[in-house]
C-alpha cells in the first residue's frame, strides 16, 4: 500500500514573547517570496493547509503559518491555568513581528483572515515597511458583538460545539462538505475560552475605524478579498475600508464565506493567484527601477 505525504514541514519554535517562554508551532511549504499567513479567531494554521499543497503558490512562495499561543499545537505560556486569555492589538502585533524576525523573513507578504485580516490593517498602518504587500481576507475595521460572547465559555455550554455552531453559517453555500466540516472541526478543537479571548481583539480592542483611512498604500500595497456570504465581516464593510484607503484594491468573492482559504480553497485560489501575480510583478518592477 502506498502512502502520500504532503510537502509541509512543521517545527516547534521556542521564543520569548511578552517576557514569557513560548512554544510556537510553525508550518511551511514551498520556496521563494515569503507568504506569512495568519489564521482566524479560535482556529489554527491548518486553515492554510490547502494553500501549502497548491504547487501554483509554493512554486515561488514560501508559505508559512504559525499557530498563535493557546491555539492548535502551540502551547499556552506557563501559568495559563490561572489566567483569562484575552488577545490585544499590542500583543498580536508584537507576536507577528517577533515570529517574523525569528524566522528571518525579509519583508514577507502577510495574509490574514478575520482577526488576521483586522491585524493586517493594523500592520499596514503601523509597520508598512516590514512587508512587501498586505492581503486582508474578511478584513473589516470593526465588528459589533451580535451574540452574548459569554456563551462561548461557561460550563453548561460545550465550548467546541458552540464555537463551531456559531460560525457554521459563516461558511459559504458552495463549500465542499469535506472542507466545510474540516473548517468547523478546527473550531470544535479550540481550548476553553480561546475563541472568546480572540474576539476581545476582534470586537473590542482591535477597533481601527478612526485610523484606517491613514493607511498609506504607497508604503505597502494593500489587497482586500472578502467572501459574499460573510455576515461577521460584511462585504460592505470591506468595501467601506477599501473606499477610505486610497490605492487599496478590494474584491468580493462570490459564494464564499468567512474562511475562504479553508472552506473552499479551489474557489479561493481563483481570487488569490492574480493578487500574488500582481505583487510579484510589482516587486520585480521595484527591483528593476531601483537598479536603474
Amino acid at each position, binding site marked *: 500500500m502506498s502512502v502520500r505525504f504532503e510537502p509541509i514541514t512543521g517545527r516547534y519554535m521556542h521564543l520569548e514573547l511578552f517576557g514569557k517562554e513560548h512554544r510556537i508551532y510553525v508550518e511551511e511549504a514551498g520556496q521563494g517570496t515569503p507568504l506569512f499567513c495568519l489564521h482566524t479567531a479560535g482556529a489554527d494554521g491548518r486553515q492554510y493547509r490547502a494553500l501549502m499543497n497548491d504547487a501554483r503558490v509554493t512554486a515561488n512562495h514560501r508559505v508559512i503559518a504559525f499557530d498563535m499561543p493557546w491555539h492548535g499545537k502551540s502551547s499556552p505560556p506557563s501559568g495559563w491555568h490561572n489566567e483569562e486569555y484575552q488577545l490585544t492589538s499590542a500583543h498580536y502585533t508584537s507576536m507577528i513581528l517577533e515570529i517574523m524576525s525569528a524566522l528571518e523573513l525579509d519583508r514577507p507578504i502577510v495574509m490574514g483572515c478575520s482577526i488576521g485580516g483586522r491585524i493586517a490593517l493594523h500592520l499596514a498602518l503601523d509597520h508598512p515597511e516590514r512587508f512587501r504587500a498586505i492581503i486582508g481576507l474578511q478584513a473589516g475595521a470593526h465588528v459589533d458583538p451580535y451574540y452574548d460572547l459569554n456563551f462561548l465559555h461557561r460550563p*453548561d*455550554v*460545550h465550548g467546541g*460545539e458552540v464555537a*463551531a*455552531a*456559531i460560525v457554521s453559517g459563516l461558511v459559504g453555500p458552495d463549500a465542499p462538505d469535506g472542507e466545510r466540516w474540516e473548517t468547523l472541526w478546527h473550531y470544535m478543537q479550540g481550548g476553553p475560552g480561546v475563541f472568546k479571548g480572540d474576539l476581545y481583539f476582534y470586537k473590542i480592542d482591535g477597533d481601527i475605524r478612526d485610523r484606517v483611512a491613514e493607511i498609506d498604500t504607497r508604503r505597502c500595497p494593500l489587497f482586500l478579498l472578502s467572501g*459574499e456570504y460573510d*455576515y461577521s465581516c460584511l462585504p460592505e464593510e470591506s468595501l467601506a475600508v477599501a473606499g477610505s484607503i486610497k490605492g487599496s484594491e478590494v474584491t468580493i468573492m462570490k459564494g464564499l464565506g468567512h474562511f475562504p482559504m479553508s472552506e473552499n480553497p479551489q474557489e479561493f485560489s481563483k481570487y488569490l493567484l492574480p493578487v500574488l501575480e500582481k505583487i510579484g510583478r510589482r516587486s520585480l518592477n521595484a527591483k528593476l527601477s531601483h537598479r536603474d
Partner: protein
Amino acid sequence: MVETLQQLVNADTALVRRGRYLTTTFLLQIGAAAWLIAIFEGRIVSVTPGPFVMPSSSFALRAEAEAWEKFCQHRPPPGSNDLMALIKRRALKAEGDLQVFMANLRYFKEALGKLRQGAGA
C-alpha cells in the same frame, strides 16, 4: 409548513441522536403566527399552532414573515442563510433562557433548516 417539522426532524436519525440530551419546548413566531414546539430527547413530540393565551416555553425565536421566507429559500441570499445571520441583522429575535438554545445551537440550526425548500428529511 412548520407542522412538517416533526416528521422532518424525527426522520433524521443523526440529528435526533445529537439532540438526545435535549428536552424542551420553544416558541417559534413568524409574523403573527406562532407555534410551540415540544422536543423530548431530540425527537419533536408536538408542534402546536397558536394563537396562545399564556404560552410557556424555555425560549422564543421571533422573525418577521419576510425574513423567514428568505431563510427558507433553497439558496438563501447572504444575510438570510443562517439563524445567526438573521440575529445579527436583528431580523430574528432570540428571547428567554438562551442557554438551551446555545448549548444545542447546531441542533436548532439544522432542525429549522429542514424547513428550507428542497432540504427534505
